[in-house]
């Protein structure tokens, strides 16, 4: 189900191959703004607060240069993922001290908790493949990012 829905979950408008600021909090805002600019966030402040609250519980810097800030929030009506890539790397306070280069933001409506965990775990499994990470680091266009995520989540 997820595999067929990548275009809805992670549309090209939510993909930035460069540009996130080097500061963690600002990078999360950058990702949020990709989704907000696509008219999917009804309350940007509430969405940002939910993301920060989750981040304060434990970092979403999961290691291997990957950050997956995520939250359940009533500020979105449909599950949405955004991707951004940082050449310089961002300090996410990850357990392995690796700077984060691949960033995925996940926002899921508050009432769809199961889907939230499902997207988070599928995406994490996909990113465990080294070839998927390498392809994302080298991707020249948004379509490559979508295809890589689609294939890796199969």
């Amino acid at each position: 189900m997820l595999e067929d829905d990548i275009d809805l979950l992670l549309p090209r408008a939510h993909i930035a191959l460069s540009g996130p600021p080097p500061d963690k909090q600002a990078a999360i805002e950058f990702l949020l703004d990709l989704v907000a600019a696509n008219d999917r966030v009804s309350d940007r402040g509430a969405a940002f607060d939910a993301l920060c609250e989750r981040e304060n519980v434990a970092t979403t810097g999961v290691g291997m240069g990957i950050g997956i800030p995520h939250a359940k929030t009533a500020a979105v009506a449909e599950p949405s993922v955004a991707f951004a890539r940082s050449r310089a790397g961002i300090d996410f306070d990850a357990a392995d001290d690796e700077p984060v280069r691949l960033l995925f933001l996940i926002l899921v409506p508050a009432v769809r908790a199961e889907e939230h965990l499902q997207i988070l775990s599928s995406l994490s499994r996909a990113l465990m493949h080294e070839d998927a990470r390498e392809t994302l680091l080298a991707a020249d266009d948004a379509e490559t990012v979508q295809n890589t995520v689609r294939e890796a989540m199969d």
Partner: protein
Amino acid sequence: MPERVVTVVPEDGLHARPASNFVETASEYDIEIQVGHVDGDLVNAASMLAITGLGVTSGEDVRLVAEGAEAEAALDELERILSTPEGEG
């Protein structure tokens, strides 16, 4: 090889703070520790990415396997984290 099956008690499942405590503890031991669903593949217990990929929810059973000098001690401590309700850890 020492192993055991543990029911995950925290409301968040193996996510957020419990997952963070779990990975941190597993990392402190200089031995190989693996975790997985009872009928599934095992992953590195010291990798947050791998743990997040398991998608373990509250009430589910997980299998813990460790090999090495302090295997039983490591499993004791990891079991304690998985068995402790949120906020009491």
